[in-house]
């Protein structure tokens, strides 16, 4: 049976689906051990970001994930995956810890964007994102970033500067939401579908741009339909990447990462 072509807008809906597997489910399925660690040591613990130490086969790694909820209650607790500055600072603290103990970093990206609120601005949302991007470019351990759902704007990039960037087949990665794009450039927020098509936000688009390294296939209907096969492929890719990146010297690793982003134009 020929596969029905999924439009960019269909992918937006799939990426945002409440029932779609979230970061914690990936963590549970891919890592044989995981201990969550909390707090940015400066202000609070942002629950839209989960961070900790895990084991993938014999490798100890630091894991960071943006966590959306599946229910309204969970979403309230997780702020719908919209990270505040303290979330980015918690992530950075744990990533710097990873560098100290020489363990690779795996990030899972899933956010409608950094939280636009008064407190977020008071506590330097822009500074927090900038610091993460800048520091990640220079960390001397392998970094693998996986976009599992919505990768929207600087709020996603703040966890997205790595040696390998992976997207799930139905995940999206964009400068802002199609609704925002439509309202700014078409002056009409209802042209969201048209925007989604024109924005080039699908995994295939990003692969064609050379921004991402790998697309993980999803079964028809999305990752949740056969989560085992999705996590199996992802786990294999992560392990292969760790082995490959571990062969590089620290200088080669950082130099390659610099070149990777340097040539994106």
């Amino acid at each position, binding site marked *: 049976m020929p596969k029905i072509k999924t439009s960019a807008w269909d992918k937006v809906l799939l990426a945002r689906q409440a029932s779609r597997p979230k970061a914690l489910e990936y963590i549970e399925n891919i890592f044989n051990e995981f201990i969550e660690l909390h707090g940015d040591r400066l202000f609070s613990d942002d629950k839209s970001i989960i961070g900790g130490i895990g084991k993938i086969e014999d490798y100890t790694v630091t894991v960071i994930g943006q966590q959306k909820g599946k229910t309204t209650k969970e979403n309230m607790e997780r702020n719908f995956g919209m990270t505040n500055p303290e979330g980015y600072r918690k992530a950075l603290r744990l990533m710097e810890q990873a560098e100290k103990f020489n363990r690779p970093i795996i990030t899972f990206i899933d956010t409608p964007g*950094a*939280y*636009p*609120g*008064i407190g*977020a*601005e*008071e*506590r*330097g*949302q*822009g*500074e927090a*994102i*900038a*610091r993460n*991007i*800048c*520091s990640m*470019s*220079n960390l001397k351990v392998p970094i693998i970033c996986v976009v599992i759902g919505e990768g929207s*704007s*600087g709020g996603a*990039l*703040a966890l*997205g*500067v790595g040696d390998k960037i992976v997207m799930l087949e139905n995940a999206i*990665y*964009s*400068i*802002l939401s199609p609704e925002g*794009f439509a309202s*700014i*450039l078409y002056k009409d927020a209802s042209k969201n579908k048209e925007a989604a098509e*024109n*924005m*080039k*936000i699908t995994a295939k*688009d*990003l692969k064609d*741009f050379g*921004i991402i390294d790998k697309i993980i296939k999803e079964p028809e209907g999305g990752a949740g339909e056969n989560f085992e096969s999705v996590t199996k492929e992802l786990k294999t890719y992560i392990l292969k990447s760790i082995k490959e990146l571990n062969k590089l010297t620290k200088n080669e690793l950082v130099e390659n*990462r*610099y070149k990777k*982003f*340097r040539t*994106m*134009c």
Partner: protein
Amino acid sequence: MIIDKIKKVNVQEENRKNLKASDMLVGKWVKCDNCKEILYKEELHENLGVCPNCGKHFRLSARRRIKQIIDEGTFVEIGNGLTTKDPLKFDGYVKKLEALKEKTKIEEAVVTGVGKINSDEVVIAVMDGNFLMGSMGSVVGEKITLAIEESIKRKVPLIMFCLSGGARMQEGIISLMQMAKTSSAIARHNDAGLLYISVLTDPTTGGVTASFAMLGDIILAEPNALIGFAGPRVIEQTIKQTLPEGFQRSEFLLEHGFIDKIVERKDMKETISKLIKLHINTNN
């Protein structure tokens, strides 16, 4: 007779104040949108683009800014001749860029180059709001990165005047990646032990705030500049509240610890110069 004269002046004043700003943009006069005073453009320019009446700092073109900061005759522009790949093939985008090039006499939303500040060599990047609100697409990102790399190569301070509505939406995800490109270059600049002074001017928002703008060793700002990540309207729509007075202005950022100092335009060159001279290390 004297009274008549005063009356006449008052009527003229009234008429001037009732003029719409748009009526005057083409002429020799401009209305201060803060104090509503009508200003003679030449006089405003002589006063560095600051309202002589209320002190409002008007936006400056990159060329004017460079004239104010860099020693006369020392500026050499770098990084020209780049063009966007128009990654989204966005309708009318390339045409618009061509028209703006023609109109503004600059190639993109940032002008970069090498020059001297009170005889000290620097690399400078100045963003220009007349060019798609200083938004950062691939060419802006590339020019800024080249400027950072030039500063590393020459081992001289880097000065960036930020002014931006954020990422260039017309270039989609490629614009987002410019944040990573420029910030990675800043990380290298930092490793090289070089000074980077970032100056935030009205407005500095979005992807520029969330990348190189906030990464200065020293961050200065002009008075009352709008500085933030999310735009005020987006925040209002999200939280469904009116924002407090002075929210996301320079003074607000200073109070919350995100900038080092607010500097008036008349003192900008001397302040930057002093900071540069204080970084000429005498302890080595």
